[in-house]
């Protein structure tokens, strides 16, 4: 789904990983539906989205992916956490972990570039081994590092 920090990841995937196919959906819920169909066909899908879009996705998660035990790796670019400039992003940013917890979707947060590959790998391995969607939260400190003035 559209997101500024994730757009850089998409660019790298497009340039360096020809065996990874990407599709841009019109809405986050639709992306989870497409991902579920990909899984039925034998693929290992990832949905990449901004945290605000998780709110658009709850019915897909709770009435399709979780009850049918369809695993998807979810990579969430955080808004509304430390460093945010837009007040409209803050409520969902604060709510996202309790929402994931209440659905029983495990999640890990990465605050540093060094930790990100491990976080994504372990969440993905767990999701596909246990057939439950799992989420990686990429904090704003990671995706938009604060400018330090000296």
């Amino acid at each position, binding site marked *: 789904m559209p997101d500024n920090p994730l757009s850089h990841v998409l660019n790298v995937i497009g340039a360096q990983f020809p065996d990874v196919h990407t599709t841009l959906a019109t809405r986050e*819920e639709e992306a989870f539906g*497409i991902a579920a169909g990909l899984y039925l*066909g034998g693929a290992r899908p990832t949905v990449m989205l901004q945290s605000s879009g998780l709110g658009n996705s709850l019915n897909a998660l709770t009435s399709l992916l979780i009850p049918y035990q369809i695993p998807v790796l979810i990579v969430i670019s955080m808004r509304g956490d430390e460093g945010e400039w837009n007040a409209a992003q803050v409520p969902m940013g604060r709510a996202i972990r309790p929402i994931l917890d209440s659905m029983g979707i495990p999640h890990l947060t990465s605050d540093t570039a060094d930790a990100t590959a491990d976080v994504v790998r372990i969440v993905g391995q767990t999701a596909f081994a246990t057939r439950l969607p799992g989420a990686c939260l990429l904090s704003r400190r990671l995706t938009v590092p604060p400018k330090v003035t000296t």
Partner: protein
Amino acid sequence: MTRLEASRALVAALGDEPIVASLGHPAYDLFAAGDRRANFYTWGSMGLASSLGLGLALARPALRVFVVDGDGSLLMNLGSLATIASTKPPNLVLIVWDNEEYGTTGGQATATAHGADLDAAARAMGIHATVTVRTEEGLRAAIVRARVDAGPWVIVAKVQESAPAVKPPLDCVFIKQRFMAAIGSAEPATRGTHQ
């Protein structure tokens, strides 16, 4: 034609192609028309049947993937038509049972009862293989073409609501595992295969 008659015509016209069914009456009528291993019945996620079909069609280009959606469900996820048009899977066939009402939830009129045209919407998004049918004969002819000719296809079938008598007595995970095995992407056991 009623939706049940249309569902029977679809099942009779197909071989072992996968069919993804939107929740509620489209899924119930598909089950009544003939339970098949390659039927994927959704029990929720209204609006996402076409997205499920799109993902499956992208993952498995050698399979001709059929979706039975409802007009109300497709109206809930109209953006799906744009994504289907932009990804252009030639092996996706989206059939819309258009009864001009939310049949599963009490019969409230949908926008198609007031003139909204889902065939025209599909064409406006860039899907070229579209047809609207109003008879079983017309539906059969459309399916015969859509099984062979390059899509993506959108077939809008105008149907009458017909209260389903049965619901599939099948659980979500059973539906998924039976379906995946039928189309050649069987899930391995979760225990014992991972270290």
